[in-house]
């Protein structure tokens, strides 16, 4: 299949394809980081994760409209406000949900699945009632559109670079929050031994709420960033849920590094296969491989050395 092309063309295409894989990798990490915190650290199966992302997307949509109408001079940089607001909005909703729903269910992880599925239905219908059933178009500042041509064929999409940088920033941020801050220390303590953590004076309820809110907030940022590459509609969140859970499980639920490694593995596999096979079959094969590996190695790529 490559006979018709020159070496430079092939080289460029492989470079492009590698870059496409990297973008997919960043997208996966963004999607999965919030869930890795909520599911991996807290053990809550948050089926409404996609809806928290879409909340971020809608917040971005509102921001873009408001800024465009009232303060067009700031349109170029509104995206940063929008992401911050998306974080706050999704985080606040997350805290509310944790307080009203999740905290009653920590001892019944499978039930969190059902409750959050119900929540996701309610959120979907709420989006539909508020924003309409149709997809909304989020207008973006011009500097985020388009691409940087490197050679004749190689063009680097700017929004791809933006997503990659954002992912890096957020991943580093999460690392610092969880492993270098007081809150992170408390979170890890609560995850490892709730009773003991309570006994040494950690307010476990507060820690739970903050952790859950943090996970949801990151989902909000992810949703905000995805307005650049995907669609924003009431049911768009459902598209992400299976991929996201598989990534987290494949990585080894309790390990953030695992989530990143599994994002990398799955994204590279998928984008390589997409190039050689049709899109549908590539997806099927990727998922099958992941499920197959999980059956052989149920604890995922990275696991804590404990046997439950």
């Amino acid at each position, binding site marked *: 299949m490559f006979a018709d*092309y020159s070496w430079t*063309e092939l080289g460029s*295409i492989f470079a*492009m*394809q590698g*870059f*496409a894989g990297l*973008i*997919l990798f960043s*997208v996966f990490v963004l999607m999965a980081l919030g869930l890795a915190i909520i599911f991996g650290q807290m053990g809550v199966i948050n089926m409404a994760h996609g809806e928290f992302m879409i909340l971020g997307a809608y917040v971005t949509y509102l921001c873009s409209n408001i800024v465009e109408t009232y303060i067009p001079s700031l349109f170029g940089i509104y995206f940063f406000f929008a992401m911050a607001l998306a974080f706050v909005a999704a985080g606040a909703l997350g805290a509310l949900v944790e307080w009203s729903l999740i905290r009653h269910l920590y001892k019944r992880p499978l039930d969190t699945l059902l409750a959050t599925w119900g929540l996701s239905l309610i959120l979907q*219908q709420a989006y*539909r009632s508020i924003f*309409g*059933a*149709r*997809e*909304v*178009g*989020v*207008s*973006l500042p011009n500097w985020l*559109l*388009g*691409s940087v*041509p490197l050679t004749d*064929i190689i*063009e680097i*999409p*700017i*929004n*791809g670079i933006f997503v990659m940088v954002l992912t890096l920033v957020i991943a580093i941020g999460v690392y610092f929050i969880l492993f270098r801050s007081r809150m992170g220390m408390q979170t890890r303590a609560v995850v490892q031994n709730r009773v003991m953590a309570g006994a040494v004076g950690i307010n476990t309820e507060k820690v739970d709420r903050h952790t859950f809110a943090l996970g949801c907030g990151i989902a909000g940022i992810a949703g905000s960033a*995805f307005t*650049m*590459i*995907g*669609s*924003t*509609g*009431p*049911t*768009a969140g*459902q*598209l992400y849920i299976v991929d996201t859970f598989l990534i987290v499980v494949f990585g080894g639920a309790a390990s953030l590094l695992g989530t990143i490694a599994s994002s990398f593995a799955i994204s590279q596999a*998928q*984008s390589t296969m*997409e*190039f050689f096979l*049709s*899109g*549908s079959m*590539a*997806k099927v094969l990727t998922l099958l491989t992941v499920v197959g590996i999980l059956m052989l190695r149920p604890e995922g790529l990275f696991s804590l050395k404990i046997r439950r």
Partner: protein
Amino acid sequence: MKRLKDLIDHRLSRRSVLSGTAAAAMLATASTFAPAFADDVNTTGLAVTDDTVKVGILHSVTGTMAISETGSVQAEKLAIEQINAMGGVLGRKIEYIQEDGASDWPTFAEKAKKLLVNDKVAAVFGCWTSASRKAVLPVFEQYNGMLYYPTFYEGLEQSPNVIYTGQEATQQIIAGIDWVAKEKGAKSFYLLGSDYIWPRTSNKIARKHIEKLGLKVVGEEYYPLGHTQFNSVINKIKLKKPDVIYAIVVGGSNVAFYKQLKAAGIDMTKEKPLLLTISVTEDEIRGIGGENIEGAYAAMKYFQSLDNENNAEFVKSFKEMWGDDIVIGDVTQAAYLGPWLWKAAVEKAGSFDIDKVRLASPGIELTTAPEGYVRVHENHHLWSKTRIGLAKPDGQYELVYETTDLMEPDPFPEGYQ
């Protein structure tokens, strides 16, 4: 509700000034039928009284398809209101019963059956996806109902109980490909679609036609519904350098596809490659964003920007009823035709009986159609023109070409029978 009432008043007050227009002509025909007794115009026990007739509207208001089907519901309600304001059908006001298919095919079948068996409606306007149509089809055939189906679709079907008001695949595809081949000198095509029957069948028809013209298909690719990562296929397109990307991506995938296409540096306004789609109406552009799809061409039968009197009137009424910020796509217009075609057939038949309406349907003309003029073919599809539109950054299409003749519907093209 108030808006609705205003609209009706508005339409009524306009009656006098409408003389001479086609709308008034239809009004005149309507009034020549003096309201007959219900038993005379309805021998099969449909829900027809001396001054009302019940019809059904069956679309998804919830679920993933609600996005697409909303416009159709609005158009059908508008048409029904207008018909009522003009005196109804055979002197009877139309009352509609709306059911939600909930984007779930058995629910469609279930509700279709309810409408036919329990509510005994005289006609149903509804369905959007092929899957929902396939699910209700046996119900309509078993209980002898009449369905007006608005979506452009893959063809390969011709039911006595369905009037297809959208275009079937060949109508949409052949004119479009002829046009890019002739006007734009296109030699090679890359076919791309969402993975289900309509894009696949359409691409097969397209491939056949492309090869018949002696041109080349350099790639064909399908992605699952809802897929949002198109960078790989965009790279393949860059490698193959086709003259035309023939895209039949649907739903949320559309948004991702066009955004990523633009981000990958494929500027469609330069037409290298040119993008021709049959799946993106003005409705979809709202989600995609006009700036992301600027320069693409679409082949379908209706654009909101069509410049004719019927359409000006239609767009105006539609916005009065449903708000100024609404856009109208091909399917919405086709859905609008349903009630009018039904009215015309009922009046030609002089009866609401399904069998009589069916017999009366072929040959029914609509000179008031927003798209211009349509006529019902023997095979229950519509003769209609196919048009090519160029996507503008404001989210509208600019008409660049229309077939001089009406395209004949051919739901079973050669090699597919």
